[in-house]
């Protein structure tokens, strides 16, 4: 994984509007207009947020006549997911052991 790429991904997700747009796109494609609907923001501001997501590689678009529907990019999301998975794995084994320890503490009535 490219570190700079992950930095861009995390920076792109640092904004609540952009996180909300990503959540929306998890449900399927949407145009920039549709992505902007939940927010009281100007069209240039909406376009800017979408562009930041595109530049980070999180969002891509296809051409459908006059429409340019946006969708999540599997590659962009993968770099973030790989890192989150690594953190999850590092803790999961320890917490599984902690389950066992807590169970024995409880039985010992400490």
């Amino acid at each position, binding site marked *: *994984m490219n570190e700079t790429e992950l930095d861009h991904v995390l920076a792109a997700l640092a904004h609540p509007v952009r996180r909300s747009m990503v959540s929306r796109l998890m449900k399927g494609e949407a145009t920039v207009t549709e992505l902007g609907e939940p927010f009281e923001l100007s069209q240039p501001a909406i376009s800017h947020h979408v562009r930041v997501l595109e530049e980070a590689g999180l969002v891509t678009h296809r051409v459908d006549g006059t429409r340019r529907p946006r969708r999540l990019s599997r590659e962009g999301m993968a770099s973030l997911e790989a890192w989150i998975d690594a953190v999850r794995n590092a803790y999961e084994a320890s917490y599984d052991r902690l389950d066992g320890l807590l169970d024995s503490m409880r039985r010992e009535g400490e």
Partner: protein
Amino acid sequence: MSGASKITVATDGEQHLTLVRRFAAPPAFVYRAHVEPELMQRWMTGPEGWTMTECRIDARAGGSMYCAWAHPEEGGFHLTAEFVAVEPNQRIEHVERMHLPDPTPDNHIVTTFETEGDGTLLTVRMTLPDAEARQAMLDFGAVEGMEVSYARLERIAEAGT
């Protein structure tokens, strides 16, 4: 085990990463497992094949922590930390770094222990390290993740017999 859960991990803006995990024991037990060295050494053992060989914890504001891990072939590494604030059974705020042996950047961590039913909701909110430290964690975690999967397979195999 009822009441326990799989861990959930989420980024919280650019600055934070939050882990959430439920345990089937009251907060006082989960808290003790985080501040008593002899308990820590029984679960925070690191990747499979590693053991925590040393653990010293002075869990109070200004107190420090030292933990060392060792592997028969791969050597060892240790962690140092300072406690910023400690509210017994509720909240621990500390700053830690690993020495591999070069120190990783400081990680500011807030751990909370909340009652949830007859169990505990554990939340660990950490500061996102920089790209270099993330890569180190990724390399470390990827290896561990693989071994964890093997351990899980073994458990599943045992349960199936």
